[in-house]
């Protein structure tokens, strides 16, 4: 079994309305130390796979096809054997 964590984030060049709103809220709550906020997705998957290479290939494919919209988003992931 492999536990995977996929991070999906908006591309740098894309304005992040949600991040901006969270930033504004944080500022108005007095957290002035916050300089930038970006909001992305964090997807946890359990894979019935033991080989990390296989898992990596699968995750690349899943992310490209579904988990991220590569027109506007980047993705990355981490694996952990369990």
């Amino acid at each position, binding site marked *: 079994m492999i536990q995977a964590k996929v991070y999906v984030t908006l591309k740098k*060049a*894309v*304005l992040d*309305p*949600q991040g901006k*709103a969270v930033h504004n809220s944080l500022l108005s709550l007095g957290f002035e130390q916050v300089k930038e906020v970006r909001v992305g*997705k964090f997807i946890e998957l359990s894979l019935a796979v033991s080989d990390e290479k296989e898992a990596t290939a699968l995750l690349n494919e899943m992310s490209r096809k*579904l*988990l991220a*919209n590569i*027109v*506007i988003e980047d993705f990355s992931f981490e694996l952990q054997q369990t």
Partner: protein
Amino acid sequence: MSSSKHKPSLKFGVMLFPGSNCDYDCHYAVREVLGEEAEFIWHADGSPLRYDCIILPGGFSYGDYLRPGAIGKFAPAMERLREYAAGGGLVLGICNGFQILLEAGLLPGAILRNQGLKFICQDVYLRVEKSDSPFTSLFRPGQIVRIPINHYEGNYLADEETLNKVTSKGQIIFRYCDSQGRVSEEANPNGSLANIAGLTNEQGNILGMMPHPERCCEKELGGEDGLLVFRSITNSLKGGREAVAG
């Protein structure tokens, strides 16, 4: 109430995804108001599509989970839609339908959460940027129309190259504007790039738009501007015999 003054001669298909919720409304607008035939296309049905025009209706296909349209794009019927569209068939994606077309790569760009982050349901003004498309053949160039929007995610985005391309190729069909036709930031309800409310593919046979024309096809519901979209479609399909409105 049905305005079917003539015998229906055209057949529209309305694609039904799990979570679509403007499917009946589109069906109603086509059949009862426009007076043409309409049929539902079940998302899981992979048989070839034989229609004069296919509508991808609004709603929340797959709950809009992950991203609007992200899951719907894989439906077997969508595979058929690609073939149908490649053959030049007319496709109208409204709201969630537009989002699915973007996710499927049938239209350029992507949609983000509204700038204000809130759902918006209200009438907006649109300027018709191109009146010689099959979807706008009965509009006057630059005509200002009033059609409701209804979405969380209508904030259209594309990279610079794409924007230049869709602009220069005349793919932008509607832009958000004010009642005087001014395309401005104040008149932009959701933060869309260049106030884009609707655009086509390069071939011009697929239109995606956030506003809901099916919601304003009858006076009783607050306006008939949306009907002009449907009438334009039938007009183009029938060879453009109808005269341009007022």
